[in-house]
């Protein structure tokens, strides 16, 4: 299995959803939809959007969770309910306060409308040094990096440029097939 190289399993950047910095969350959602339509339907679907700078370098990633965070009414939290946990209040009490706050807050539709216009850089995860891997690295190295850093994907580089993304789902699929081969 270690004979697999990262470049064999990665999704090329051209096949992945990308938007440039300055795009709105709505742009990102459209890009994701388009990439999913065009992608090989026998494979796992894309779950994120990569954010590129002006020189087309990957600077961040927007996952489902990051996008949903935009719907959190952070500006409505005038009483600082979010911070109650650190003062020893129970999760049950905090949940009930959130529920109350939600009931008094804007409906989900309005929050969606508002979130659509927000910029991706406000919510994206900024890619760190340990999230990059060379395209010629072996699969076991990639697994080690994913497990060690608890990552869902790695940015694949060649000569300093990002050329693709190695997804946890594809690595798992490769391992799964290898396991099946062993049992036959």
């Amino acid at each position: 299995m270690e004979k697999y190289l990262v470049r064999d399993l990665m999704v090329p950047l051209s096949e992945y959803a990308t938007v440039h910095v300055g795009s709105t969350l709505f742009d990102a959602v459209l890009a994701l939809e388009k990439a999913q339509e065009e992608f090989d339907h026998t494979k796992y679907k894309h779950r994120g959007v990569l954010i590129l700078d002006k020189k087309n370098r990957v600077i961040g990633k927007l996952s489902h969770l990051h996008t949903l965070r935009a719907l959190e009414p952070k500006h409505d939290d005038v009483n600082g309910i979010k911070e109650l946990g650190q003062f020893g209040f129970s999760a049950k009490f905090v949940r009930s306060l959130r529920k109350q706050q939600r009931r008094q807050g804007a409906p989900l539709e309005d929050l969606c409308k508002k979130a659509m216009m927000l910029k991706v850089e406000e919510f994206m995860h900024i890619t760190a040094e340990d999230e990059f891997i060379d395209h010629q690295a072996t699969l076991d190295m990639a697994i080690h990096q994913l497990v060690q850093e608890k990552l869902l994907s790695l940015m694949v580089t060649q000569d300093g440029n990002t050329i693709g993304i190695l997804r946890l789902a594809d690595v798992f699929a490769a391992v799964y097939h290898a396991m099946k081969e062993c049992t036959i």
Partner: protein
Amino acid sequence: MKALTELFDRIVQRVNINLRELAFDVRPFVKDLVPFNQLVKFYAFYGITPHHPLDFQFRHSNLAGSYFLGKCRTTNSILYKSDIRGDELKKKGDIFQYPGFEIPVSKDEGIRIEDSFLIKTLVHNYSHDPETLEKFFITNTVSTHYANIHGSPTDGSYLGPFSTVDLTTMNDCVIGAFSYVQASEISHLNIEPGTVWVRSPNNFNFLYRYPLDKLSHYIHFAAGAPPQGLLMDFVEDRKEAFQRVFEKVNIEQVSVPKSASLDRFAVLKPKTHISDNVLVAQRAFLQNAWMGKGANAQENCYIINARLEGFNVTAHGAKIIEADLGQNVFVGFNSFLRGRPDCRLTIGKDSIIMPHTIIDIKEPLKIPPDHLVWGLVTCAADLETHSISLKALSKINDAFSLGSMFFEGSGNSFVTAFRDRIHHILEANGALYDGMKNKGHAQKNQNISFNTIQPYPEGELKGVYPTIIIRP
């Protein structure tokens, strides 16, 4: 002043090491906050009474303008105009009650201050930590103007101006200005300014946070400048009155009832009435104040144009102006209660004003009896979200929120804990003395002899006090 400069740098470095996880740099806050020439100007003084152990040790420290009573030790520290009041420390043979334990105290408890810089800070009460019964330590800590360290062993922490840590063991924490914390044990927390937090694990939890934009009118502290705001202006405006009592070695005696105690370092202005069992501590300021039987004014309290009917606890740093308080009203630490001559503040009997409450009114305001009040109150409408009757609170068994206040747990336990504590304070202060029994501070602190000590006047050790050991 080479030694003093090195001492300051050493303390700052030690505090910063402890607070590195919170990325808090104490240096810009305390640099030049107290000019070094001030540290040379003032003598320190210690009290001698037959009621408290005489056991002082001062090593490599500056103690400018500070007051010591009971068993205290300072090492490698700077204490500027601070009160180290060891008259409630545990004594050898006492039994310390802790849930599930009865722990005998093996020797007299002592306050140990090491590698710390305390500015106008009050240290009082005794260590409530069962792990350190005989040692009430304050180490690697910086505290600023009018902070209170009350029964709270503290290590590696910073306390902002007018903050209070009460009955809490604290490690590596930042306590913002005007915050009050009573939470048993805390570590590695950065508490925002204006937080009032009272937590008894498994019993109750109370939290209120001031709106910072409104709090800054009263107190604001940013690096590079001294603390600012109405609270600072208020005490600065009355500073001169204290100069007279501190400058004179012998001050004329003011007649008070035999069962009452008026500290010679308190300021008593005309038309003040002192009843039986009243305790007025050092650095308290009374002007046209009517102090009913068993009422008290603790350190840094200001009671002006006010009437306290009796058995009133005015905790350390509280200020009461143009107000009428019924019997048994408790006013918590550093509270600022200000009526106006034409619109007075009235507080009904048995009410509890939470620590760090600000009531600042421009229209008459009456707080009913048996109520709990917290936070910022500027008019009657504010009471709707900043008060609750003690009866209603006692019925709470789950959780509720009111305005910016959150409460969870047993309301009855909360009210009982406060009532018990108020009773204990009255007892300790001698408010319940009947001529025979229940002697407290008001009776025991009547005859205190004060001795003064001073630092090296010049040379490399200028500002540092020589090592002094004082024993019977």
